[in-house]
């Protein structure tokens, strides 16, 4: 750990606490505040943004990626157990802080426009602030237990926001689905935590990585035959898969679109879903080669699968939802193939353009009151700002040069191809093929969206008639976000000789951007001395890497062009009829329309299976377990009755018999004593006769 301090180490804590305070204020007093208190939340997050900027500047001036600030306190301690809570601000966290607060600020402002007049307006901002608090908690957390806690809180705020319009059945269903599906992944996270507590006994990232380096994990007994470190890494990654909507946990995200579009843009596009990628990056040194292979394949498959589904969606938000899943798959693919910086760079660029795309969609939805793209069309004249912004976002996500996505997506694909070159086996080409294929699909479905929405003639005149451009409150955040889709912001600089001397000017061509300098894989950090972080290029096989880079550049340009052209031919030029294409590939289309039958399969197998299983367990409980109890009760009762019967009939009967018998005998004999003298004489004679007879015999 570095000994020098950040100038304002408490800034990052303040960034974390401000939204929490805003949320509490909104929850209890929001209704009584003027304007429903929207300014409380907005100011809190904007103040956080300013503070984060300061932190980032401070960080850069103090040594860039080599610098880290850590502070913690004992949260729980007893016996030999000691759990801390603390913050860790390194370059990754500092950039993330700026990203989250910056995007969230835009979304807050846009929300003031979008949510205006809602019944639970103050509550919406309470939720939004609480979400920011939990997300920022993940960013600055220095230990995995704390990360897990904020992780769950993010899940909770997402639950609250998806179900914001809970009167809608679909929203209520979607929020439950999101939380439960996330929880399945979180079991993996939990298991990872258990393994860490078992082997390391401390959740602080630094301690865990020390233990990894020292081989502490290897000394423990494997569970289920798997080495503990791999198991822990994969377990935590399962949690990341839940939040980042990776296959097979992706099903919650499209449904989450039931929430307000502003919430979708912040949570389900820019930040919460990015938390999984961030976490994967955070635990990077823990991930063994086997775990990374798992990450690679999950990412590649998710990227491709979601991109294919996006092809056939007609709801504008759902296209974006599947595109989010697909892009998150890219990030995982990048991380899994060892492209630490590439994966994270895509996280950052994607956060901006995806948030932008969602807010534009929100602008369109708010103006048209429909989400169906086939009822839109020709909007570019009526909503020029929205159109321009959305086009920029689309160019960025499609990987067109001079836009941000071009850099980050290429970096990922280069890394994946590089992996293949390192060991050319056919199987290792699969992730690259899937990634490249998704690039074509992405360009196609995104331009399909643009063409259907903004080009051509209006398909529904009535809706079109209502359409209007959104006011400044909405368009300003759009413009701000749109700036960040421009490539020069992310790219490296070239030295351009000017009369006044050489000046570094960022041009949207050079790939080695400032992110590459700031975000450095933890394993490499140790080899870099602070202050020299400028030339931190990873130790790689350079010629091979360059070869991959050029190949990818060419291929991705081609694929973007091909995708866009295809969309243009079908949806603008209408050279090829969309219905004809659908008919021709009807089996594939059916498969895609049904979302690869994944949701259906879950419904049929897990949901219904669980219902049946529960009913069975309950039956067992009531009939067998409780039946046994009742049987014992009944048995006891019958035994009691039996004993009672025996008691009454036999024992008491014997007693009564004796009594009755003696009574009867007494009565019979008492009859003899009737006081008549002749009777006595008769008995006397009789007795005498008997006596004589006995004597004679």
């Amino acid at each position, binding site marked *: 750990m570095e000994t020098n301090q950040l100038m304002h180490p408490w800034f990052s804590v303040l960034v974390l606490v401000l939204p929490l305070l805003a949320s509490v204020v909104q929850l209890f007093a929001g209704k009584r505040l003027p304007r429903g208190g929207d300014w409380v939340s907005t100011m809190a997050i904007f103040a956080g943004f300013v503070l984060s900027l300061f932190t980032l500047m401070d960080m850069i001036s103090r040594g860039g990626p080599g610098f880290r600030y850590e502070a913690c306190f004992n949260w729980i301690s*007893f016996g030999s157990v000691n759990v801390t809570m603390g913050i860790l601000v390194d370059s990754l966290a500092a950039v993330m802080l700026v990203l989250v607060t910056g995007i969230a600020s835009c979304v807050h402002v846009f929300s003031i426009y979008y949510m205006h007049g809602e019944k639970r307006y103050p509550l919406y901002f309470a939720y939004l602030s609480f979400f920011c608090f939990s997300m920022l908690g993940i960013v600055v957390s220095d230990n995995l237990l704390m990360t897990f806690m904020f992780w769950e809180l993010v899940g909770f705020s997402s639950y609250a926001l998806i179900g914001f319009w809970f*009167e809608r059945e679909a929203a209520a269903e979607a929020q439950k689905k999101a939380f439960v599906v996330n929880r399945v992944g979180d079991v993996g996270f*939990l298991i990872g*935590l258990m393994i860490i507590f078992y082997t390391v006994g401390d959740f602080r990232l630094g301690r865990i990585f020390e233990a990894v380096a020292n081989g502490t994990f290897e000394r423990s007994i494997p569970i289920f035959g798997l080495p503990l470190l791999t198991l822990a890494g994969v377990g935590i990654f399962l949690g990341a898969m839940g939040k980042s909507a990776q296959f097979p946990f992706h099903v919650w995200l499209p449904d989450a679109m039931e929430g307000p579009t502003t919430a979708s843009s912040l949570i389900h596009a820019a930040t919460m879903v990015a938390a999984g990628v961030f976490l994967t990056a955070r635990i990077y040194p823990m991930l063994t080669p086997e775990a990374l292979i798992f990450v690679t394949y999950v990412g590649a498959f998710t990227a491709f699968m979601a991109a294919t589904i996006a092809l056939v969606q007609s709801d504008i938000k759902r296209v974006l939802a599947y595109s989010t899943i697909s892009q998150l798959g890219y990030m995982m693919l990048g991380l899994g193939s060892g492209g630490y910086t590439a994966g994270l760079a895509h996280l950052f660029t994607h956060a901006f353009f995806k948030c932008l795309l969602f807010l534009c969609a929100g602008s369109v939805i708010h103006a048209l009151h429909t989400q169906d793209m086939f009822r839109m069309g020709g909007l570019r004249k009526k909503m020029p700002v929205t159109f321009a912004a959305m086009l920029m976002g689309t160019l960025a996500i499609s990987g067109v040069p001079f836009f941000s996505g071009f850099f980050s997506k290429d970096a990922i694909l280069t890394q994946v191809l590089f992996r293949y070159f390192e060991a050319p086996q056919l199987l290792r080409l699969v992730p690259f093929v899937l990634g490249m294929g998704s690039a074509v699909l992405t360009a196609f479905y995104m331009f399909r969206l643009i063409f259907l929405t903004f080009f051509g003639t209006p398909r529904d005149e009535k809706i079109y008639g209502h359409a209007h451009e959104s006011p400044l409150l909405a368009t300003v955040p759009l413009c701000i976000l749109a700036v960040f889709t421009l490539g020069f912001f992310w790219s490296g600089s070239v030295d351009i000789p000017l009369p006044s001397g050489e000046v570094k000017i960022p041009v949207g061509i050079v790939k080695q951007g400032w992110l590459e300098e700031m975000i450095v894989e933890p394993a490499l950090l140790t080899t870099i001395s602070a202050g020299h972080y400028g030339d931190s290029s990873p130790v790689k096989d350079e010629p091979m890497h360059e070869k991959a880079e050029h190949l990818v550049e060419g291929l991705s340009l081609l694929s973007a062009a091909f995708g866009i052209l295809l969309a243009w031919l079908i949806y603008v030029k209408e050279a090829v009829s969309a219905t004809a294409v659908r008919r021709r590939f009807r089996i594939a289309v059916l498969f895609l329309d049904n979302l690869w039958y994944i949701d259906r399969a879950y419904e049929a197998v897990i949901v219904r299976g669980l219902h049946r299983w529960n009913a069975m367990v309950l039956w067992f409980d009531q009939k067998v377990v409780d039946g046994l109890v009742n049987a014992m009760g009944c048995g006891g009762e019958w035994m009691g009755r039996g004993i009672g019967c025996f008691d009454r009939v036999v024992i008491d009967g014997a007693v009564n018999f004796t009594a009755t018998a003696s009574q009867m005998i007494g009565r019979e004999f008492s009859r003899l004593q009737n006081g008549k003298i002749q009777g006595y004489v008769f008995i006397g004679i009789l007795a005498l006769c008997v006596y004589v007879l006995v004597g004679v015999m």
Partner: protein
Amino acid sequence: MLHQAVNTHHLLTWMTFFPLLTGLLILCLPDRRSALIRWAGVVGSLVPVLLAGYIFVAYQDSGTLAYVERYPWIPMFNIEYYMGIDGLSASLLILTALISFIAVVASWGINKQIKGYFALMMLLETGMIGVFCALDFFLFYIFWELMLLPMYFLIGIWGGPRREYAAIKFFLYTLAGSVLMLLAMLAMYFNSAIDGHHSFDLIAMSAHYRQFEEAGRILGFRFPLIVFAALFIGFAIKIPVWPFHTWLPDAHVEAPTAVSVILAGVLLKMGGYGLLRIGYSIFPQAAIYFSVPIGLLGVGSILYGAFCAMAQTDLKKLVAYSSVSHMGYVLLGIASLREASMVGGVMQMFNHGTATAMMFLLVGVIYDRTHHREINGFGGIGAVVPRYMGVMILATFASMGLPGLSGFISEIFVLLGSFRSDIASNAGSVWHFISFQNITIIAAFGVVITAAYLLRMLQKIFLGPLNPKYEALPDLNAREIFTLVPLGIAVLAFGVYPMPLIRLMGASLSKLAGFIMGSQM
């Protein structure tokens, strides 16, 4: 053995018997002064709360006994009036006082034979507090039985339609456990020799636990094993552990709200406490011997209770089965014999007490207003009763173990601690093929099922389109809020910063875990 300065304040005696005195006073009050009776009940249960508050502030667990009172009671059999608390009981004692007070306030709406009701409540409180304070087995047993009687009448007289069935079931079931406990108590008494005498002194028996190993076999089993097993079943009924749990849903469904609150909030904890105080402290080797089967029963209860809860349509039954599930964590935590897991287990008792008491209060609130508890019979009422929904969400997510709320801390410590346990592999016994690691991983899946059934419950009741029948449903009133707020604060505060709670128990439980593991030969 243990030398403590005898406390002259008689704190625990006051705490235990003040409700009883109040109960006697209530019996002397005229029937028609119902308000006076209610207020007497409030005062009677408020005094223990204040004393408990004092303990909460002043007590710092160091692994030794505190507030000890010790007098000979029946010298002929060496029976003593021996009261005192340590880390095993302190938190539960505080919980008992708090829950009893809240239950008394929540009983405001009772109109049938008020005098009898409140007198029995007071008697019940004395029994419950006594159980957590008694350190003499005989005294413990007296308190244990003392609490059974009022409970039977409270369910049987003030309960729902099937109250008699439920009350008898509860009574007989618990009595069966008591018989086992009685037999174990006598067996222990006659095989103990503390300073040359037979004794009921639990603390001394724990210190001289090795003498029970030399005791003769019973029915061919080693003495500690069979006595431990008898005690375990006796206490398992109370916890309740699968398969001894079926009295619980019936009792809960029929019991009036306040009694359900006490049942879930306090009574279930007595099983766990008894297990620790008597079973685990006196027969440590049996605890190790049986650790895996007990752990399995714990996991079984977690999952089984959750599955049953998922199939419920009666709100109160759902909460009752969720109790079975949550108490499974207690058993798992205790069984794995690690300090982290045992602290987690005892914390889980406390946290389950507060969160589930909230749930039962809330169920009572809705039942008072709508006169039914059918989950599918509400629909969308969140729009008309936002405060009620807010509190319900708090209680629900606390049971679900959402971080920042108390249930999380205890559940995660149970899981983390149990995963650390290597008893099973060390024991070299029949159980070597099952490790606590595997058991704990299975237990971790409980969190998904818990989320599933609780969220389904929330969805069916509060979300979706509003059922027009309940358009004018009134929200929480002041008295209801008054009963819920202290519990809500406990749920939130101990979730954010649990140290004040852990401070009450950490040292004793660490010591107990060390003691048990050290008893291995």
